């Protein structure tokens, strides 16, 4: 039982690393107050998921999926190219997300002069309280 467990854990180490990276990124998204730090956490989270997907397609002793007919006839194995295609699209989407988030943060900085989340929320609440006060 123990031998089976250690073998199972050590042979699938890519998955464990990807889970660890996901947790690091998730911690940054939730616990950090700085908005840039949140974006960095988001990037790490996304890359961890890419690592998981690419690990799914790996074939032992497989070559890159650029093969000729001759190589297939000789019996060469090649890794599954389907996760690669999915992740190729996901990387581009990740960059677009980061760019949009950064532009929003720049706008927030112009408006409030800070990129700390609690300070921005405090400034918004103060502004709302000022508006609710009756003017007489």
């Amino acid at each position: 039982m123990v031998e089976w467990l250690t073998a199972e854990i050590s042979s699938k180490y890519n998955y464990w690393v990807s889970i660890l990276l996901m947790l690091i990124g998730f911690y940054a998204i939730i616990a950090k107050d700085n908005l840039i730090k949140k974006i960095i956490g988001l990037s790490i989270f996304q890359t961890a998921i890419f690592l998981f997907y690419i690990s799914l397609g790996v074939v032992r002793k497989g070559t890159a999926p650029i093969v000729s007919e001759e190589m297939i006839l000789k019996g060469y194995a090649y890794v599954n190219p389907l996760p690669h295609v999915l992740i190729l699209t996901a990387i581009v989407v990740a960059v677009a997300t980061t760019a949009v988030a950064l532009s929003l943060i720049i706008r927030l900085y112009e408006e409030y002069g800070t990129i700390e989340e609690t300070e921005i929320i405090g400034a918004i609440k103060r502004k709302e309280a000022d508006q609710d006060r009756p003017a007489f």
Partner: protein
Amino acid sequence: MTMLIDFALLFLVIIIAIAAVTLKDLLSATLLLGAYSFLMALIWVGMQSVDVAFMEASVGAGATTAFMIAALSRMTRWEKK
């Protein structure tokens, strides 16, 4: 041998991710994120997915870092706490 390189790269990636999250200097954190992306590209070359590695090295390590430095040049460099 290939497994040894794999282990070293995965270990380095985890260390760099923790450093990028915990540093107070946002510019250093951004540059560490670029290094992280580039190491990820190396891991993907090790897993024979060369097209993804290409994309990550150019777009993930290059364009994202450039965007983040451009954004940081318009705001403060240090994280408060």
